[in-house]
């Protein structure tokens, strides 16, 4: 009877910069430019997708741009995209999230007719009418301010005569500790509201949490923007027939793809093999990325005799460069963002711990610090204070989390082993 199709996207973060691409100096200009434009290009892809797939409307569940960045270009670009959709008769429903809240200093732009921005005061609804009949009603509420921690799910009340209800919500579902806990709610709460489709935003990893009754979907961001946002990014294409969801399909929109890969070098005996492995691995990634450039952070792991030759990492990268030069310069380039050396010499940790050498004492000490929260916070607050507590350091460095310290301890352990056994290799 009635069929309609909509696209659910979120977290566009237009023109907001990539985090952590400064790990290596000498990034070629063409890569830098492409990265810089990638959020815009991903947005273009989203708009094009709406047009090509003849979507009836587009839902954006918050964080269209980072208002803190004050990028007018992002806002005007968004405006242009909406106009394009308007030209094609595609409606757009937008809520603001924690990065673009009502009080975030949005520029006063005139938005096209097709676009509905939901109020930040209470949940509003908007009818989507197709061929003279209301086929869906979209509910949403924008963030009035960035740190909006109120649970607003209760406000989403389905009207009695609605054939298909879509809820736009920028939320941290079930209080994921890895994300800012804004507008929190729980899966159970969402299910109780008797909606058909919950179009969620905030979490950048795309995921279909519930397939149906109701469908609960995080669209994820349209373009991965740091090494933590690896893999395909995009939006969901939802087909609805007779008020029932027919299909929810993920669509890629990312322009540049992030990878955080681990390469086990166990069994590698010569540095040449390492170069070859890395190059082959990156080549494989390029093939996998489906016609788009990739940025890769690589961790080399495993026990290998070449361990000591992998550091200092800058020297290793210098040696590697000629092998991956072609990959860097091809149209769908692969940029090795950084390489982390996590290899170990061919001695087992257990063996070292069992021995009476200094290494045993050292490892035991590392263990002790790890298991002692006081020690951990001591490191964070005292040992590293000089830099992380520095006037500028505090400003420009991300604060160290518990996890960061654990990672750091791992590196300390690696460093110590390298220092104690690095030379051993030569000496034997």
């Amino acid at each position, binding site marked *: 009877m009635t069929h309609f199709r909509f696209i659910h996207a979120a977290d566009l973060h237009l023109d907001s*910069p990539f985090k952590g691409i400064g*790990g290596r100096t000498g990034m070629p200009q063409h890569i830098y430019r492409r*990265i810089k434009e990638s959020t815009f290009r991903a947005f273009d892809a989203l708009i094009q997708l709406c047009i090509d797939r003849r979507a009836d409307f587009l839902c954006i569940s918050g964080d269209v741009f980072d208002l803190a960045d004050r990028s007018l270009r992002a806002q005007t670009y968004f405006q242009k995209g909406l106009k394009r959709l308007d030209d094609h008769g595609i409606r757009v429903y937008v809520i603001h999230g924690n990065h673009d809240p009502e009080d975030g200093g949005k*520029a006063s732009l005139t938005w096209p007719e097709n676009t509905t921005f939901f109020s930040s005061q209470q949940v509003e609804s908007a009818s989507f009418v197709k061929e003279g009949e209301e086929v869906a009603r979209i509910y949403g509420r924008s963030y009035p301010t960035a740190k909006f921690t109120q649970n607003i799910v209760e406000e989403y009340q389905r009207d009695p005569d609605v054939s298909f209800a879509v809820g736009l919500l920028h939320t941290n579902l079930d209080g994921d500790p890895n994300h800012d806990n804004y507008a929190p709610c729980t899966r159970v709460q969402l299910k109780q509201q008797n909606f058909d489709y919950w179009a969620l935003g905030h979490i950048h990893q795309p995921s279909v949490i519930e397939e149906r009754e109701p469908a609960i979907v995080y669209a994820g961001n349209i373009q991965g923007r740091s090494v933590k946002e690896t893999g395909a990014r995009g939006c969901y294409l939802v087909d609805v027939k007779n008020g029932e969801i027919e299909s929810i399909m993920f669509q890629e929109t990312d322009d540049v793809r992030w990878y955080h890969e681990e390469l086990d070098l166990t069994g590698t005996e010569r540095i040449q093999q390492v170069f070859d492995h890395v190059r082959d691995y990156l080549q494989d990634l390029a093939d996998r990325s489906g016609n788009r450039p990739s940025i890769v952070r690589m961790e080399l792991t495993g026990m290998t005799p070449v361990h000591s030759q992998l550091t200092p990492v800058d020297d290793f990268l210098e040696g590697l460069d000629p092998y991956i030069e072609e990959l860097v310069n091809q149209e769908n380039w692969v940029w090795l963002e950084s390489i982390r050396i996590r290899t170990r010499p061919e001695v087992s940790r257990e063996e070292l711990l069992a021995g009476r050498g200094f290494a045993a004492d050292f490892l035991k*000490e590392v263990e002790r610090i790890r298991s002692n929260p006081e020690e951990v916070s001591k490191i964070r607050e005292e040992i590293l204070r000089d830099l*992380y507590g520095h006037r500028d350091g505090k400003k*420009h460095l991300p604060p160290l989390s518990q996890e960061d310290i654990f990672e750091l301890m791992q590196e300390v352990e690696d460093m110590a082993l390298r220092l104690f056994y690095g030379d051993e290799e030569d000496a034997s």
Partner: protein
Amino acid sequence: MKIDKVEIYGFGHLKDVELTFNDGINIVEGMNEAGKTTLMSFIRAVLFGFSRRGRGTEQRYEPLDGGQLGGALHLTDGDGITYRVERVFRRRVKGDVTVYLPDGGSAGEEVLSRLIGQINEKVFKQIFAFGLSELQELENLREEEINHFIYTAGTGDGQVIQKAQKSLSDREQELFKKAGSKSIINMKLNEIRDIYQELQRLRQENAEYDRLIEELDRVNHELERLNRNVDEYQHQLVWQEKLLQQYDAFESYLEMEDRLQGIPVVDDFPENGVVRLDTLEQNIRDKTAELNDLKERKDRLIQEMQSIDCNDNLLDHREEIEHLREDVNIYREYTEQAGRLQSDQRRLEQKLDDTIFRLGPSWNRDRIRDMDTSTAVRKKLDEFSRRLNQLREQKLTAENRRQTAQKEVERATRLHQDWLQKEPSLPEWICDRDRIDDEAGKENQYMETIEQHQQGVDTSRSLLDQMKEIDLDIASIEDRVRSRTDLKQGLMQTTAASGEHPARRWGSIAVTFLFPILLFFILESWYIPLATFIVLVLINWNRIKGDNRDGASLQLRELDRLMKEEKDQLELKQREKKQVQSRLEQLFQQFQQNPSSGYEQTWKQWSLQLEEWKEQYRDWKDWHKLKKEKWSVLKEAEENLLEANREFDHIERTGEEVSGEWLEWLQQLRFIEEKEWISPELVQEMIRDIEGGRDILRRLDDIKEEIDRRQQFITSFTGRLIDLQKQTGISIGEHQPEYQIRHLYQMLEDEKQKELRIKQHEEKSTEVEEQIGRTEHRIAAEIEERNQLLERGGAKDPEEFRRRAFYYEERRQLSGKRDEILQSFRRLTGNDEEKLNQFLQSLHSSSRTTVEEQLGELERQLRDMKDQLEQLREQRVQLKTRIDHLASGETLSEFNYQYHRMAGELEEYAREWAVTVVTQHVMQKAMEVYEREKQPAVLKQASRYLQTITGGRYIRVLAPLNENKIEVERVDGRRLEPVYLSRGTVEQLYLAMRFALVEEYGNHIILPMILDDIFVNFDPVRTKQAIRAVQEVASQRQVFFFSCHPHISQLFTEEKVNYRKIYLEGPSAG
């Protein structure tokens, strides 16, 4: 773990050495170079691997005499299990380890590592197996490093740790200094600060956007307001302008109104009434005038018609006159032609007379006309001409030939006569013997004779040869007879003496045999003598054989028989000779040869003569041949001459015949009257003349005919002209016919013209009559129409009509103008009645000057407003540009990216820094733990051992925490640092500390200790005390004490310490 046995395959100068050791103390004694240190190194090497060649002070100990490097240790572990650990050098520098397990299996390094408790070589060397040099090493350490040494000695990682600490600290400094500015992170922080500031600035700038938008809104609003004002003012301005513009119109409106008041009202009036009335009246007048004209014209036409006179007689002969006029040209032409033809006729007559005169007197016109000159005649004439010419030529040729032949005959006759004179002579015998005149007979005879002679010569030659042969036979027989006679005489003389022959023969035989033997002896070879022998045998064979002959008597008999035979033969031959001779003579006689000068000579002369005859004959034969030829030439010439004569005669006869024929033919055709010769060429010429004459005759006939025809026409033409004049009765007088005809024709034309004119006048008058009728009708119609018009205009006469028309028109024009002005006012006020009234009101109420003043004021105000508007627009454009720039600018984005890039970079460096710092922190912690937890126990043990060794003089070893130094406490409570101790005491202190560490290690692993001559600097008392310490240590483990001093073992004995002594032979002792 303890060492039970050492098996050295080859290590330094030690080769194939086996040593067994006990538990407890083993004193290995030997002189210098006996191999004590080598042995210690061997044990170390088996446990930890061979050293590299030339690394520091250590040696590799390759076997001096060659052979396998390596050996084995028999070890027993803490559980009493024994192992044999073998290390030999195969490929790896460290050597290859095999651990033979008690169960017969074998293992590698990992088991060995477990056996020695995973301690490393450094620890082993520092604590378990050391010599004086290791012991004294401590002396050189600086105080702050002493604590470190303890640590080092305890862990074996000292140097590594030091190095690590240094490199970490260096890197830390390189990365970040708290108060620095040149370290990497410091610099990055500075950079990022700058970028951040710029970023903030840009963000602020972008934040202005809304203010700008507001400003733009305000400007837009202001613009809108101003625009509205301007519109209003503009409106007023237009109103005032309208008033001003319409003021003139308004005034004339008022005037119109006034004038309308004074004109009587005529409501209805025919459209264009006056014009129409005028037109009608004018029409009536015009038509009446026209009618009068027509009538007048009609009268004139009739008058004119009556005045024209016409000659009908001439017109009746119109055709005849026209014919004559047509023929007059022919007449003129013919008259001219007739004159010309007559002169031609005369000329031709003259020419014909000339021709007749040329042909001859017998010729006249008829003869010429009748003469046959047809093609057949010409053909015949040509044939005769050809044949006659041919004959003439043939005759000439024949004449020529006849003369040539005559000349030839004369020449041949002369040549023949001459040749006959030249006949050569022949041998006389021919002429004498036969007298044959006939040439052929003569020739045959001659040839026969020569042949006969030739036969004779040949036969006589063979006879002569035969005779010569017979003579030779006779001579040889006579010779033989003579020799036999000699032989017979000889034989008869030598029958008695028979020795000589056999002797020579035997000599030959002897030579035959002996010479080869001799040769054999000379040459010492057998084949040359053998060949010689064979040769000699062959040579002497006859001689050897000959000795078998009969005796001489037999020979004589035989000889007589032979001689008789030969005599018979001789006689036979002589008979034969005579026969031949007689035949020869007979032959000579037959040919009259006289053999007086000897047969041979005679034959020679004869054969010579024969040759001469042959020669003569050949000459005569040649002459004879030529004579025949010349004769035949002569005959031929005569023949030719005869033939030529015959031919010539024949041609002449034919010529005569043809000439007769020719003349006869001519006569027949009447070319000639009599038979006299005339050449064909002449005849041809005559024919031409005849034909010419005939041609002229024909032309004369033609001309005559022509002249007649023309004369005939001229006569008839003149007759016709005269007849015409008679019939028309017009006489022109004696003029040329041409003139007469032209005159007549002219007259005819005049008459025709008159006739035509009459006709035209008749037509015209009919036409005019019709026009008169039509015009009268029209006039009546117009008058009717005029009366009607007057009636409609409400007038009785045209005058009244015109007056009424004037009133009507005046009113109409005035009210039209007034309405027009009103209409334009209405248009100006937008067809709004109220506005119109207002407008009229304004005009009524205000004067022209006030309106003009108001207008000026408005214009000024409007100008001001427009200036203001312009300013605002300018402002708006600027704002818009600014806003657009902000909206599309990428600088902020660029800086944002740069900032994050920098931040990323900073984070990476910060991370490295953090790792460096934390690693150092952990290292420090690990060392503190050692110092706190392990060092006290070690120091306690060390104090005890030092007390023992120093006999209670020093009672404690101290290592104050955080003070990086070692102190000893003397029994008097005084604490001393090692620098203040004697050398021996320092060594004792470090020995004590090592013992303590070994003890400390004992908690983990028990290993044998090897002490290499370490008591050197100890006094005897302290040595004994040290031995006791060693004894204590040895209670828990195996101890090897190497020494080159025999008194040491003595001291052990004195102290009643159990030990096993192993004496190590020096290399010289073998």
